[in-house]
């Protein structure tokens, strides 16, 4: 997938983009629907996100993020933009992104494949109950109180499980530097 994205960045290769689209667009749509978007909203937002992927491909830096991480941030920002647009009624398309997509820290780039592998390993080794709340946290746009209700757990338990899970993942990241 990374090669496809790089080919799109290099010369706007439409076949490479079609491959990227086939893999990522349905996942972005699925991701947004898990976050509470209706099928129509998720379709529109996934299309928005894929337009951005195509137009911003040149900004993708494989030394900083994997293709899926980069597309996750685009989809996340597209969702935030949509919420802001809905509540403000208008959006300047040139408005600087709320979250900088460019990290100013060139000196801290670590070996990315290694990072992904270690994060994956850290996530894989989390106890199932921590994994469950962490997944809900990332997928679903629900307050922690709703997650607690759904899992039939006290709010404090959800918060402490999340904290433990995040600390563990963060430690993996920290150990790389």
């Amino acid at each position, binding site marked *: 997938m990374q090669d496809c994205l790089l080919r799109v960045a290099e010369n706007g290769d439409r076949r490479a983009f079609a491959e990227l*689209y086939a893999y990522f667009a349905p*996942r972005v749509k699925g991701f947004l629907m898990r976050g509470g978007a209706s099928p129509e909203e998720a379709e529109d937002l996934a299309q928005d996100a894929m337009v951005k992927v195509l137009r911003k491909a040149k900004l993708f830096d494989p030394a900083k993020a994997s293709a*899926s991480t980069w597309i996750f941030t685009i989809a996340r920002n597209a969702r935030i933009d949509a919420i802001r647009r809905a509540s403000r009624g208008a959006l300047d398309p040139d408005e600087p*992104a709320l979250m900088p*997509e460019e990290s*100013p820290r060139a000196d801290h780039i670590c070996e990315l494949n290694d990072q992904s592998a270690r994060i994956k390993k850290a*996530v894989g080794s989390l106890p199932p109950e921590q994994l469950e709340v962490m997944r809900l946290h990332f997928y679903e746009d629900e307050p922690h109180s709703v997650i607690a209700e759904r899992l039939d757990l006290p709010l404090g338990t959800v918060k402490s499980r999340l904290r433990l899970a995040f600390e563990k993942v963060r430690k993996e*990241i920290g150990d790389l530097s």
Partner: protein
Amino acid sequence: MRVVNHHPKTETLADFSAGRLDEARSVVIATHVATCAQCSQAVSGFEALGGLCLEEVAPVAMASDALEKILARADAGANIVAPHHDSSARLEKQLPLSAYLEGSLDDVNWRRVAPGMSQSVIEAQGYREGVLRLLKIAPGTRMPKHTHEGEELTLILRGAYEDEIGEFSVGDLADLGDKHTHSPKAIGDEPCICLIATAAPLNFKTLTGKLVQPFIGL
């Protein structure tokens, strides 16, 4: 490079990375992260986690004409180039905060709210509820003791203050949870200017605080 001693909590960075923070708090965190290597790295890690979640989610079929529409829309617009990052030392010049300010902190239209304290509210409530404002505290002024009912993020843009936790100077971020009580005092020679995102109104402890609260407007 300045030394940053106080950082957001790990949970706050995770919320930010997942796109779960309101706009006001996102601006504060993003501005801190733009200049803090350690937090920037943590955010990258959490985003990588988001990427893994994206890979694992069950795909849902797109509309049959979606690819065609996407290509047509991409052709219609110009390709986006990298946003310009001002590398000047002033923290307020950093994106995303600079996009919310007209000019520099010297051009802010301050409104006096109490002796030694003035503020300026920034319009940033389009994405969920949250109040974003700048607060300027004259050197030596101590704010009344107050308790926060909700989460509050404070990023120091100029000067410094001290409270029960310690000393906060430029680039430091105070990530205060619910029910936290403190009374910050501006220290040093220049006014302390903070960027504050409050998720809920402040709750002042003392009578003076109660009197001041309506004027601060929170």
